[in-house]
């Protein structure tokens, strides 16, 4: 039995999980339109491979990763690409972002699949490429492209693989349902991951409030006799946070600014493991996932297997939503989820839960009172920060100090805001401070870049000036020589070729004189017109003449300078 360690803080919010566990996983309907944001994961947005009007099959890759950290996107069902462009997406900003929209044809026609029967026999690189091609991104939280986590290279030695089955947030039961009903999918997925990473230890961390899931997994492990240890941890939010779970199971803290792999640990969600299983064994890319539909505004609260891209409204209808009661729509859990203003937005790879809450269920927070520094937030912070100080600094825009107080180690779990007796929206203050700092950094970088370019340009101008000077000198010398020669010649044959330099100057001043005259005349004309004076006709004539002259002078000069004037 592995020893269970402890992490600082944590809270026990009401669980509200039972409601959605009454019924087994249900298949969600295939919607008429599937909306697939190009960015459903951490990293760069995917690049579309299709165009409007293209016919696509279920499972067909429709967007490929851009660069290293990115994930592919597949058509969840067959149909026609009807639109590529901005659509509302699940994002805290409520802004729109690029999406591919598929008009489904209801055929559910699969494209050709490439299952790998015996993944042990093929090259690991091949296997990883297969996973990458399946577009798998972490289903547990941030949606980090999984293949990168599994492809650690030589500099990371993995000794522990942790499967995150904690599901610590209230309401959510997607992982729970998965574990109850498909434990073998998960375990096979874990085996594949283990095959890739070759860890010396595999731990599954699960909270003790899921007895059925624990039993199902334990039975399956025993049956298949796998070297996997199931560790039951006490229920306490946020034990499912990657860093907290690692601390719970191993006692190791992931150093600030590092990733778990740096301390030899990789952490994957159970759903991710199941997705890997399906991708490898069945050749099915990540086109669907389990979503918990819950909240008291729904008639049926249960887990659905939904296609990625299904609009929330379709799921809500399927769950018999009572819109008059629905007050708040949350994607994710009540602690970390984002609230959704528009129910047309689609399910994405990280959508594990949709809460349609009534007013009584999630009432608006009472107005914030001043922070009395009571320290309750500090007692619950899993990152051992000083939330009240962070708040103080964020509010006062003392970002440097906030940073010194390890603002960036805040995992935004919301435990502090949950307990704050003054109802201060602490997490929002931290997010604000973080994005201000990031923005400031970006701006500084941009300023540095601009300075470099400016200085480079200055230097270039100086250099050019020097070169010009040099050339002029050379030319003058040449001209002097020429003149000397000519003079010598002229002694023989007199000639009157004008000095080019002087000529140029003359032309230039002629042009500018003409310009000034023209300007003055124009002004006079304008003035006259405005005041309705006599003689505007005559003035107009003059202006026209002058205009001609000016253009002539200008072009003469331009021609003369010609080559030198063109762009750098």
């Amino acid at each position, binding site marked *: 039995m592995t020893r269970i360690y402890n992490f600082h803080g944590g809270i026990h919010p009401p669980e509200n999980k039972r409601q959605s566990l009454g019924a087994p996983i249900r298949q969600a309907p295939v919607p008429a339109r599937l909306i697939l944001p190009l*960015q459903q994961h951490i990293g760069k947005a995917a690049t579309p491979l299709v165009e409007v009007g293209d016919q696509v099959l279920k499972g067909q890759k429709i967007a490929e990763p851009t660069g290293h950290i990115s994930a592919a996107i597949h058509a969840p069902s067959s149909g026609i690409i009807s639109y590529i462009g901005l659509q509302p*997406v699940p*994002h*805290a*900003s409520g*802004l729109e*972002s690029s999406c591919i929209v598929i008009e489904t044809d209801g055929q559910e026609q699969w494209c050709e699949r490439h299952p790998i029967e015996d993944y042990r026999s093929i090259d690991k690189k091949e296997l990883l490429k297969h996973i990458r091609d399946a577009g798998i991104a972490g289903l547990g939280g941030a949606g980090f492209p999984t293949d990168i986590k599994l492809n650690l290279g030589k500099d990371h030695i993995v000794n522990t693989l942790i499967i995150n089955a904690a599901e610590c947030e209230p309401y959510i039961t997607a992982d729970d349902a998965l574990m109850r009903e498909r434990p073998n999918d998960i375990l096979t997925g874990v085996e594949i991951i283990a095959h890739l990473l070759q860890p010396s230890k595999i731990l599954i961390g699960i909270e003790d409030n899921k007895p059925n899931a624990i039993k199902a997994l334990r039975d399956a492990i025993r049956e298949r006799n796998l070297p996997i240890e199931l560790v039951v941890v006490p229920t306490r939010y946020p034990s499912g946070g990657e860093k907290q779970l690692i601390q719970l199971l191993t006692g190791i803290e992931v150093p600030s600014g590092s990733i778990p792999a740096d301390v030899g640990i990789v952490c994957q969600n159970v759903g991710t493991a199941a997705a890997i299983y399906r991708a490898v064994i069945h050749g099915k890319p990540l086109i669907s996932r389990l979503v918990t539909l819950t909240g008291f505004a729904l008639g049926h609260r249960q887990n659905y297997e939904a296609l990625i891209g299904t609009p929330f409204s379709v799921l809500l209808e399927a769950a018999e939503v009572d819109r008059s009661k629905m*007050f708040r729509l949350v994607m994710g859990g009540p602690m970390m989820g984002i609230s959704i203003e528009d129910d047309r937005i689609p399910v994405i790879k990280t959508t594990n839960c949709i809460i349609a809450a009534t*007013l009584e269920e999630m009432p*608006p*927070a009472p*107005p*914030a*009172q001043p922070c009395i520094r009571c320290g309750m937030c500090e007692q619950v912070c899993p990152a051992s920060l000083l939330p009240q100080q962070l708040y103080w600094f964020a*509010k006062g*825009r003392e970002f440097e100090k906030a940073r010194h107080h390890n603002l960036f180690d805040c995992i935004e779990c919301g435990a502090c805001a949950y307990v704050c007796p003054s109802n*201060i*929206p602490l997490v*929002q*203050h931290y*997010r*604000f401070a*973080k*994005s*201000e700092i990031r*923005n*400031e950094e970006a*701006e500084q970088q*941009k*300023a*540095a*870049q*601009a*300075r470099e*370019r*400016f200085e*480079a*340009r200055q230097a270039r101008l100086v250099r050019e000036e020097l070169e010009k000077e040099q050339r002029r000198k050379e030319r003058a010398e040449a001209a002097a020589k020429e003149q000397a020669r000519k003079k010598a010649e002229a002694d023989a044959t007199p000639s009157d070729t004008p000095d080019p330099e002087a000529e140029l100057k003359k032309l230039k001043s002629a042009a500018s004189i003409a310009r000034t005259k023209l300007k003055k005349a124009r002004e006079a004309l304008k003035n006259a017109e405005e005041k309705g004076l006599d003689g505007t006709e005559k003035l107009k004539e003059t202006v026209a003449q002058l205009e001609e002259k000016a253009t002539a002078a200008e072009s003469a000069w331009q021609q003369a300078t010609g080559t030198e004037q*063109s*762009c*750098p």
Partner: protein
Amino acid sequence: MTIILTAILILLSLAIVFGVILGFAAVRFKVEGDPIVEQIDGLLPQTQCGQCGYPGCRPYAEAISNGDAINKCPPGGQSTIEALADLLDREVVPLDAEHGEEKPKTVAYIREDECIGCTKCIQACPVDAILGAAKQMHTVIVSECTGCDLCVEPCPVDCIDMIPVPVTPNNWKWPAPVSDPNLIWTDRGRGHLLQEGTE
């Protein structure tokens, strides 16, 4: 009378000693360069727009280190003023309206079909953010453009627009939870909510 003489002599001798010491030190320990200018320059936005009345950010930085006001840079805005005040231990003052006001960030956009390729904008751009050659269409390298709008005026056909940098989920910033002194809703969302929720 002797007392006056003693006094003068004593102080004089002190002064001579000190004069020698300081005169010696003035030469011996002379230091060149002024690192503070670098620091100030580092805080300025490097937009190089000249709105401060100096030909670029660095000259303004030098002017500040010589005592000029710190509130003349509109692109930097209030945050730059605060940073400068912090660095120089001066008081935070509002932006001097004479030099313009803080505007949202913009980038130049050249309507390419109208561009006649006169290269005027290229000469105007302090950071070489415009690509193109004589008599050819010009484009702005968006990532390099500082939004200084120096290229707008020289353009003979007025084909350059300054457009605000669009907000996308990638560059979106979390808003500050506002605290209105009268309302106590420190979270804009929450305040909004209550007003609607009570309906």
